């Protein structure tokens, strides 16, 4: 494995230029700037990310800052319309302070759409050239942060892909990498079991509170995190789906709770609390899988493990997504989109440990530069919306290894 060392000591497994729009009105210009450089055939490409809202939001500002200073990002172009509420000077300063090249284009001052696209492309092209010349250094598994998520689940997700990813998580944690699992709304019913794995009893109580918050939140919305496709696949209740989702976390002790944009302080297993604090304000905690992926990346994840039974095709901007297919039939239909066939566990061709080890090996290959399937297919999806969070409680990150 190799990585590009950043000023904060973290290493990136990719060397991308982020082209970040600061309001939806600037999205087209940002996308046009990045598009010709989306696939350079090298470890560095230009990826469009951004925040669509015109009104400022502390959560979105924090996530954008974390993404623009993410280890996989080597340079950042900010694209502003000019009248939006986003504090672009503060973001620009944070990026500059991180040691990365940054430029801000403001469409209203830079001559409109075409002129801004031309200026942006010239800058991106120059930056990609600089980044390609940067040498990469050796990187250890202990320097990795890996996030996990499931999407398009069916009854096979909890039987094959999720427990196999849990094994891979155990291998990562054993080598002192940081591993993040999330979506407390999909862990409802598992809170007592999870709390028993916390490194301190106080953290266990925080985990229970976290899941209770998620249950309240979804109850208020009148909709659990449960789609009709889940039921068609044989899952009856949210807790049955939870049991499957919970298996992704493996069997390691839980070292802490983090919120979107918090970087794990050391190796270990972390629960990412994605459900907003306070009253229900901005709707669903995460409106689709990519919203969760973006939060995992904002917590420093270099790459994402994604399990799917029904057959998701998603990938992400900035961080490779490794797709682990739970259902052997889905794998047969969509093999080009899937990195791992965990359905072999169901057909008796492989056991959990074998597939878990395969996932762990693939993590190291992708971290070493091999493109994941969704990455090679160009899935650079991105979504960020409004949320509000309170700071972490003192028991969430116990000072024990």
């Amino acid at each position: 494995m190799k990585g590009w060392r950043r000023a904060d000591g973290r290493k990136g497994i990719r060397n991308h230029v982020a082209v970040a729009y600061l309001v939806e009105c600037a999205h087209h210009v940002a996308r046009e700037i990045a598009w010709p450089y989306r696939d350079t055939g090298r470890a560095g490409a230009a990826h469009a990310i951004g925040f669509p809202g015109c009104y400022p939001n502390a959560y979105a500002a924090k996530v954008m800052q974390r993404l623009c200073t993410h280890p996989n990002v080597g340079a950042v172009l900010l694209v502003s319309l000019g009248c939006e509420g986003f504090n672009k000077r503060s973001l620009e300063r944070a990026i500059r302070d991180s040691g990365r090249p940054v430029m801000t284009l403001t469409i209203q001052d830079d001559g409109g759409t075409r002129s801004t696209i031309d200026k942006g492309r010239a800058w991106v092209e120059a930056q990609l050239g600089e980044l390609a010349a940067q040498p990469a250094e050796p990187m250890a598994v202990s320097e990795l942060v890996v996030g996990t998520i499931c999407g398009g689940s069916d009854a096979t997700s909890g039987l094959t892909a999720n427990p196999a990813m849990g094994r891979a998580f155990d291998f990562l944690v054993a080598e002192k990498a940081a591993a993040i699992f999330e979506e407390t709304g999909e862990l409802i019913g598992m809170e007592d079991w999870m709390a028993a794995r916390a490194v301190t009893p106080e953290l266990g109580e925080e985990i229970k509170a976290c899941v209770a918050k998620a249950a309240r939140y979804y109850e208020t919305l009148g909709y659990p995190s449960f789609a009709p496709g889940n039921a068609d696949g044989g899952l009856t209740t949210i807790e049955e789906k939870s049991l499957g989702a919970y298996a992704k976390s493996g069997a390691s002790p839980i070292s802490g709770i983090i919120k979107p944009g918090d970087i794990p302080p050391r190796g270990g297993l972390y629960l990412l609390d994605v459900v907003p604090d306070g009253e229900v304000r901005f709707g669903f905690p995460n409106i689709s899988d990519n919203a969760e992926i973006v939060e995992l990346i904002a917590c420093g994840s270099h790459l994402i493990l994604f399990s799917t039974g029904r057959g998701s095709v998603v990938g992400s901007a900035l961080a490779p997504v490794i797709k682990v297919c739970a259902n052997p039939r889905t794998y047969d239909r969509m093999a080009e989109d899937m990195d791992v066939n965990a359905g072999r566990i169901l057909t008796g061709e492989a056991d959990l440990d074998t597939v878990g080890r395969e996932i762990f090996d693939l993590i190291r290959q992708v971290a070493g530069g091999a493109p994941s399937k969704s990455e090679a297919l160009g899935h650079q999806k991105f979504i960020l919306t409004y949320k509000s969070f309170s700071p972490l409680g003192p028991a969430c990150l116990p000072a024990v290894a």
Partner: protein
Amino acid sequence: MDARLLLLAAGDNVAVARQEIPADSLVMVAGRQVRLRQALGFGHKIAVKPIREGERIIKYGAPVGRASAAIALGDYVHHHNVRSEYLPNTRAVEAAS
């Protein structure tokens, strides 16, 4: 246990279909032959013990809901006879709205 069914943990009162099993098929469940009253989809659940109304459905050794009606050995187990202990099922929400 029938080879088409997967019992995830000893003590579970439901098994999962490894493949689609058509209606009227004869399946071996807990040493008894039962005739399926409806098709059992891949990944769907069948009772491998008689389950009383209000009793917990146990899969992978963990509770995944409670029986909303008595369930006989060999019955299909899904929304029509199971309720969540936490949140209403999506289908129930759709029916109510």
